[in-house]
């Protein structure tokens, strides 16, 4: 029961959006439950990795001119 409640609160706990009672509950539970702590660490890694994707590195953009020609052509047709 504590595990289900703890997991439900992990994203808001991580974002600092919980009230004091819930923070205390999650903190206490995570220190005692290695399983839930594992879930918490994984979610933190997912959030960190997602934030790293924010930089555009690695995206192969379509050719600017070719795409512009297509947009222009369709603009005229419409």
């Amino acid at each position: 029961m504590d595990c289900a409640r703890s997991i439900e609160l992990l994203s808001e706990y991580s974002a600092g959006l919980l009230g004091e009672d819930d923070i205390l509950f999650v903190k206490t539970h995570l220190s005692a439950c290695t399983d839930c702590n594992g879930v918490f660490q994984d979610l933190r890694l997912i959030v960190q990795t997602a934030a790293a994707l924010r930089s555009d590195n690695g995206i192969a953009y379509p050719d600017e001119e070719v795409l512009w020609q297509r947009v222009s052509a369709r603009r005229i047709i419409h």
Partner: protein
Amino acid sequence: MSVAEVNKPQPPDFELAKRAADGDGSAFEELYRRHYRRVYALTLRMMRNPTEAEDMTQDVFLQLFNKIGMFRGESAFTTWLHRMTVNQVLMHFRKKSTRSELLTDEGETPIQIVKGTENPSVMPVIDRISLENALVQLPPGYRTVFVLHDIEGYEHYEVAEMLGIAEGTSKSQLHKARLKLRQLIRQQAASK
């Protein structure tokens, strides 16, 4: 381009938008050149398919051309353009699915909460590649909220406004999306 041209202050997006709305084609072209990469990156992250993302980018700029006169400068141009982009992508998703499937978890497989340490030998590596692979499999509704909040960096109130959902729904969808991603990443690791 000469040094003088390089140093010349660039007109703000709002000014270009006004000129484009008045029929100035070069102003519209400048807006395209400034923003097409961001639009493409967003559509690619939401759609996970480069060909579809390229087609969608064209659709977005066509839509922009038709609606540029509606931009009043009440929000940043990039926010307005992103909202338009998200709406276009969601419309595309809706053609394939229903709204309830997009924005709720109805009809989806319940998320299995796999605990962290019961089998350390299959502990997945959570990195860029595994996350990208898992994102492809994420239902579109979850993917959209995750992309907008965790990748693009929008706040929940902005995500809620863009998607026409409550802020609380955005929060719960994001949490479910993260748990689903974790489940998918673990499944990928276990199948190797």
